[in-house]
């Protein structure tokens, strides 16, 4: 893990915000932006009953590369990101990302970019089962 990137893991067990906060805490950090992505009970108008994430074997390695790049901004003091795989219920935490900087404007900007980059570049897929029993791989148009 780079010295800025304190924690970057893909995990099949529950994620906590606390472990991410501890990973990026530090005396020089003034502003800490955190993003917590949770399973929603609907996708657009369709109620979701259950959701599962699956990951390619390279996912954690790619997550490290993506996070290192996003955190390469000189304003960044520390960053961390966790992503959950496996079956999740509504309200479960799917992703937690945190970025600490001296100032909040940088913390918000880098945290947003980190989450956007993880979503677009890390080989993770989302399978949703709707309340009416139909199901869908998000983004795969089937």
């Amino acid at each position, binding site marked *: 893990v780079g010295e800025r990137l304190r924690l970057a893991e893909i995990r099949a067990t529950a994620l906590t915000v606390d472990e991410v906060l501890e990973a990026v805490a530090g005396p020089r950090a003034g502003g800490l932006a955190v993003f917590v*992505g949770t399973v929603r009970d609907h996708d657009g108008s369709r109620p979701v009953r259950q959701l599962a*994430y699956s990951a390619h074997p390279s996912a954690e390695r790619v997550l490290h590369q993506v996070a290192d790049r996003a955190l390469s901004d000189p304003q960044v003091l520390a960053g961390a990101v966790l*992503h959950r795989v496996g079956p999740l219920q509504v309200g479960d935490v799917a992703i937690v990302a945190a970025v600490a900087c001296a100032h909040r404007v940088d913390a918000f900007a880098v945290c947003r970019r980190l989450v956007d980059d993880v979503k677009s570049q890390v080989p993770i897929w989302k399978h949703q089962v709707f309340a009416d029993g139909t199901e869908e791989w*998000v983004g795969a148009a089937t």
Partner: protein
Amino acid sequence: MSAGVVLRYWAAAKAAAGVAEESFTAGTLAELVDAAGARHGPSLPAVLARCSYLVDEVPVGTRAWASVWLPDGAVVEALPPFAGG
């Protein structure tokens, strides 16, 4: 010049193909995608068209599929659009 390759399907591609991986004979990635689509009928072609590909773990990226020559014994992986977080 065709090669014996393995195509591994992920997520929606695996669901549409009904199998995790299988062998093909194809010279380029374009030929391989066509062959796999033909073998597994209606829904797989649409998914494969939206996938990104790895050849022996190296991302194909934006190279044209018809220009991606497959070495013999290559393992090609079909990755549907990512949807993390």
